[in-house]
């Protein structure tokens, strides 16, 4: 069981949360203007890295808020949590 670091509630057990998938995926501002490739990429392509992963979490059974976190996908260890809209704390562009 992971201990998920909620920025507002502190570390709480994983069962209180819902996982929201990869963070920082931005919906194209004008969907009509993008190609099929770009739209398919937005919908389905994921970095799925072996290492640092920026991801969204939702503290469903807690404060009820979304936030982003950085977690190593090999060790499952969290290194940071931060507010939605803030840049990645490690400065990497993609997760």
């Amino acid at each position, binding site marked *: *069981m*992971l201990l998920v670091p909620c920025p507002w509630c502190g570390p709480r057990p*994983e*069962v209180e949360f*819902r*996982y929201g*998938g*990869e963070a920082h995926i931005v919906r194209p501002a004008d969907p009509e203007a993008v190609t*099929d*490739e770009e*739209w*398919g*990429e937005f*919908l*389905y*392509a*994921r*970095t*799925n*890295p*072996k290492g640092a*992963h920026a*991801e969204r979490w939702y503290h469903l059974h807690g404060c009820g808020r979304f936030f982003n976190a950085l*977690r190593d*996908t*090999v*060790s*499952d260890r969290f290194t940071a949590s931060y507010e939605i809209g803030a840049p990645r704390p490690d400065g990497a562009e993609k997760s």
Partner: protein
Amino acid sequence: MGEVGAGGRRGVHSVRPLQRFSGFGLLRHAFRGHRDWRAQWRAPEPRAAYDAVIVGGGGHGLGAAYYLAKEHGMRNIAVLERGWLGGGNTGRNTAIIRSNYLCEESEAIYEHALTLWEGLSRDLNYNVMFSQRGVLMLAHSVHEVGISKRHVFANRLAGIDSEWLTPAEAKAFCPPLRIDGGLRYPVLGAALQRRAGIARHDAVAWGYARAADALGVDIIQNCEVTAIRRDTRGAVTAVETTRGTIRAARIGVSAAGHTSVVMAMAGLRIPIESYPLQALVSEPVKPVFPCVVMSNTIHAYISQSDKGELVIGAGTDAYVSYSQRGALWVTTEALAAITELFPIFRRLRMLRAWGGIVDVTRDRSPILGKTPVKGLYVNCGWGTGGFKATPGAAHLLAWTIAKDEPHPINAPFSLERFRDGRMIDEAAAAGVAH
């Protein structure tokens, strides 16, 4: 005493004849004290170049090399495995085999695999212990009865054996099943595929490795691919590995949960995410469970191996991970579900639990075909159900690599379907049943 694989070898391979297995041979070895069994495949040093290289030494990758050699005459090929053969998802699943999927494309690909399973032990001269003991898929609500019957009818239209059983018929087929009214989720019926079953997962990897080796395929373990080299036009030319550079104009990637990592070496982001999927086995007991039972509603599936262990599958964890272990609460929930359906197992102790890293697509269907990079082919996205597809995926990957175009069966499972929106939605059929 052996038989050589068919001729047509090229290059400098020194191929030994296959030491064929038979009941008589076993007896002869017994009289000699079992002292002259040979290693079943070589451990060659990688050569500088091959016609084709398969990345990933699980059942899918080894099988692809075997079919490339056997059916397409390509003998100068290598399988590169990061760890040991079958040490990834081939050795980390619950060994269930079935073909009763919903969509026509899926029915074709999984039935292709099931048909190959039925002749596999004979084809490989290796007992993969394929046992067609039947897979029973329970329905616990009126709605699930409806959707299950739809699956049954769709399967029958596709020529796949599938039938609907009443609760009493299901209990007759699987006596440990509870069908009384005391269950939180009562059994209202079940879909049964009699040709479905289980196989010995290690034997599948070993059988393919042995047969491929006999045809001249180099199987190279402890050889992790670290980069993919491409020429000025973008076509692949070589892989960099922990055991040196290996040139190849065709590279087939069959790396399951690590596919994203390998494809990133060629600059590709693909539509899969990797999750831990857990399973566990009990202490061995006498034969008590005659078939495979799975339930989508309570999220559990169970069978008994030939060793006597109950093999129990849990669900995937919720988050992306490469850790090969999952949360305890996931397996605890699976055991709660199993012991409610089968109270006789309540006092069994669990011996081992493990996790595999499964590569999941959004429509729960695989990706098997060409990629935008010339000479690079991919077989991935089998998610929670790749073992059952082993011979079929291997056969179709070999075809795709040899012909540089997909076989009609795997053509719909292209990467382009995510651009074109031509999804093959098997979330219901594959949601639990691994």
